[in-house]
């Protein structure tokens, strides 16, 4: 499992996370990121989603 922090204040609603790891990330009506689960699997998609966020709003705590 991964420890993930999402910073809704920094999120710009790019949706790169939702496109890359749709099982873990979603966006609310104004486009802001939401975590769909507390048990985030350590997969390459999730790591890629966190890395691709242009606002660097998704942090993985190692």
């Amino acid at each position: 499992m991964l420890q993930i922090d999402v910073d809704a204040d920094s999120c710009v609603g790019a949706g790169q996370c939702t496109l890359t790891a749709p099982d873990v990330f979603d966006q609310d009506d104004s486009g802001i990121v939401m975590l769909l689960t507390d048990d985030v699997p350590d997969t390459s998609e999730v790591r890629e989603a966190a890395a691709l966020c242009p606002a660097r709003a998704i942090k993985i705590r190692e």
Partner: protein
Amino acid sequence: MTRVVVVGASVAGVTLVQGLRELGFAGEIVLLDAESGRPYQRPPLSKEILLGTSPERADLVDEAGLESIGVDFRPGETAERIDVADRRLLTARGKLPYDHVVIASGAAPTVPAELRHLVDDGAHLLRTRRDAAALAAVLRSERSLMVIGGGVLGSEICSAAVSAGLRTILLARPTPAIGPLHGVFAAPLIPLHRAHGVEVRTEPARVDRSAGGWTADGGDHPALADAVALAVGVDATACWLANALPTTVDGVRCDTSGRVAPGVWAVGDVADRAGGRYDVSRRTQSAAIAQAREVARRIVGAPQQRTAVPYFWTDLHGIRVQAAGRIPPSAEAHVVERDDAGTPVAFAAVDRGRCVGAAAWGSARGFRRARAMLGDTTIPQEVSR
């Protein structure tokens, strides 16, 4: 031991270095930057930081973070030349051999010869942390600002100046264009500025420093302002490579995955990628990140991931402007969403019968609808040109 040298410690360079370690790269990493100080990203410089809030938002990684990823970070060390055949860089401090070098030297503001006098007289440019601090001081202490250039950066500066309470004059081209948006896709730009009190002038004007501040001629009456900011585009910082590699103001040429020559890679604003000209993300933070991830994988020989859809965003007067995909000059705008007043706020970009891009002005819903159409060949919508 394999040594990777990265030139430029902004978002592209730092993402690359983090990506290498995440992929298990165990060799040596040297990260150079001409600027001193810790690595930072630029988007907040024209937003929160101009308004004096959240200065920490620009930080990319601190010293402890760099140490934990095991990087020899050398702020203040400029790469001066590259020797491709012998695989070494010449820096201000000496020779630096490499197995792979990643060029991440970014871009810097364009100053056309006919506007040089403005910079000499104290007009502001905005690229670095220091530039942002200087312009933030203007927003705190002056009453009016003239902005030259209505692109992303000029528009963001106007937006910040208006919210800081300054009388704001924008000198822009008559045909609006902002980032990847042009024509119909950019049509909301000037009305948006005007609705928020920006005085937009589109006739050609000469700007000069005068006794009481700055003046722009043209129009019915000259425009006056206490300070001037110049934001008419950027040129790649590639001149230091020109002795050895094909470079232009667009940057250093590389293939579709960032390779320039054996052992030489380019990422971010300095990378002139084959086929990338109309990506909405060209010269944005998103492209810098995606390219850095991709090149890190190529250096270690890891399999590529599905590439991310190009993405662009800016914030103007509290409105989020977004785009995805590609918007070539020939693309038609199909209106996907209108606001209550009937004004188009979201568009699909249709090129040769296929939806290749999406754009929206202040409509998260419209943006998602338009983006969901990417790749579609039947676009059931009103068409405007």
